[in-house]
């Protein structure tokens, strides 16, 4: 795929996921996949949406949220993102509640290098509080208007 074609694909997928319509989650997954494959992801790796009996979706590895992605240099990136649809004054929008990235030397994660956790929005009070939110706020974090960010060494 040429650069202009890639950029056109990125624009199209961005517009589709931002629209919040029926195929928004697939577009989000495809956009992440496109960017990862164009940069760091091994040709035999792929991201995938997982779902279960609950209402949430998680974007992670091919075999689920805990499956790390193989990278081109032989290392791994464990990625978990939780997209959700939110009604706004401009119509439905797909947003990400929280995401976690761990760069690691091995598939099992026994040799982590660094971790990057973003918590954009904590789940509303009253439901099951298992968001990787407040409990993550440990040694170092930065709070912005919309996001809480924590980076830690392995």
């Amino acid at each position, binding site marked *: *795929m040429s650069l202009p074609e890639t950029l056109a*694909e990125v624009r199209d*997928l961005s517009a589709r996921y931002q629209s919040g319509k029926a195929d928004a989650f697939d577009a989000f*997954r*495809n956009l992440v*996949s*496109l960017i990862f*494959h*164009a940069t760091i992801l091994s040709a035999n790796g*792929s991201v*995938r*949406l*997982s*779902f*279960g*009996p*609950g*209402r*949430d*979706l*998680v974007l*992670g590895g*091919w*075999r*689920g*949220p*805990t499956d790390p992605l193989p990278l081109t240099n032989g290392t791994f990136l*464990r990625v*978990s993102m*939780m997209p959700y649809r939110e009604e706004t004054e401009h119509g439905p929008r797909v947003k990400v509640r*929280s995401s*976690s990235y*761990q760069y690691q030397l091995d598939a099992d*994660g026994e040799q*982590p290098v660094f*971790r990057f*956790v973003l918590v954009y929005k904590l789940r509303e009070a009253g*439901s*099951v*509080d*298992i*968001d*990787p939110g*407040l*409990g*993550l706020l*440990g040694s170092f974090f930065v709070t912005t208007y919309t996001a809480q960010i*924590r980076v*830690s060494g392995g």
Partner: protein
Amino acid sequence: MQTTTYEPLKLSRAQIVDQLEAGARRRLHMSAEEFVRAYRDGRLADAGRVADLLMLAHLLDERDPLFVAA
């Protein structure tokens, strides 16, 4: 590039609980129930280390017996 052809992964409750059980025992030396309870009680020293397991738990229904037990 693998950007257009794929199927989302559907995980049953049993598959999710099995993965939680295996992951929590291997990485934290505790059961899935103990893992959820420890997180909810704020007793996980570095929850970011197991953020993927926490997101996996999110795939369960919020009324799941695992949460009720915890």
